[in-house]
């Protein structure tokens, strides 16, 4: 069996291809609850993005053919101010909404992704409650671009999770190398495990023939 620092590498954890030693596994189990909420959020966003990516052609087709009559509108603070019709909610959280909007520019339609903040938030009170993220004449390309940008945001979020884990582990288990544990925790963000409370079981040992 593979050994590291004199310990057997025998503990498998979700989504991580390697095996952890008993010491690493202990640190891993200590770190999982510390970032469980962030991992859940990362997974939720990743799932929502994949769904948007899968259905972007349908959404684009739907908004292009839909009549704009009676749709709610919002004003975006830019120069000059522009009024957009809300066509589709891409993501909704308690503090903000990401909306696919459109407006008529001459005879053509222009599409935009607008973030709408909670109007009572300190940020919205000063900077306006809407923020135009991107615009295009092609709704499909706009959605693809949106998904790409949001993946970048998720990557930043994931980096922060990794940094938090490393920081906490260095406090709890000083003097150890936590790089594998951090990678293993980060791997949890990719696809969520069935249950955060479920205990990871040690992997069965595998004999390698050389």
């Amino acid at each position, binding site marked *: 069996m593979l050994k590291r620092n004199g310990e057997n590498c025998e503990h498998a954890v979700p989504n991580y291809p390697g095996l952890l030693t008993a010491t690493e596994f202990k640190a891993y189990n200590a770190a999982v609850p510390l970032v469980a909420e962030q991992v859940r959020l990362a997974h939720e966003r990743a799932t929502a993005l994949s769904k948007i990516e899968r259905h972007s052609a349908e959404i684009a087709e739907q908004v292009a053919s839909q009549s704009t009559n009676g749709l709610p509108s919002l004003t975006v603070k830019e120069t000059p101010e522009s009024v957009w019709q809300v066509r589709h909610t891409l993501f909704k959280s308690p503090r903000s909404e990401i909306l696919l909007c459109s407006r008529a520019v001459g005879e053509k339609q222009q599409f935009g992704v607008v973030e709408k903040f909670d109007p009572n*938030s300190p940020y919205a009170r000063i900077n306006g409650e809407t923020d135009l*993220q991107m615009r295009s004449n092609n709704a499909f390309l706009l959605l693809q671009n949106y998904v790409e940008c949001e993946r970048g945001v998720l990557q930043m979020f994931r980096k922060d999770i990794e940094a938090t884990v490393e920081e906490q582990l260095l406090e709890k288990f000083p003097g150890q190398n936590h790089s594998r544990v951090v990678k293993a925790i980060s791997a949890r963000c990719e696809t969520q495990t069935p249950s955060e409370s479920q205990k990871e079981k040690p992997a069965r040992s595998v004999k390698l023939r050389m």
Partner: protein
Amino acid sequence: MKSSQCTWGKAGKTRPNAMDNSKPNANGQPEQNGRIAYSIHEAADMLGVDYFSVYRLIQRGKIKACRALRGKFLISKTELFRLLDTE
């Protein structure tokens, strides 16, 4: 992405613990207690926006952020004050 490595003190040593001793007050205003930077979580609470909104604002260059030693994003107090339009 508008971010850069930032350091405090001598010889480029980072001091992440210097950021851990206070929280935003009830009005979402940064407290005047010597803090120089805030985490994304704290900044989101102060601004009253979603976590991801702060990352989006960083990505689009609307908020300047820097990274501490382990790569954690931090937003300076002056930057937050600028967004909250307070001195």
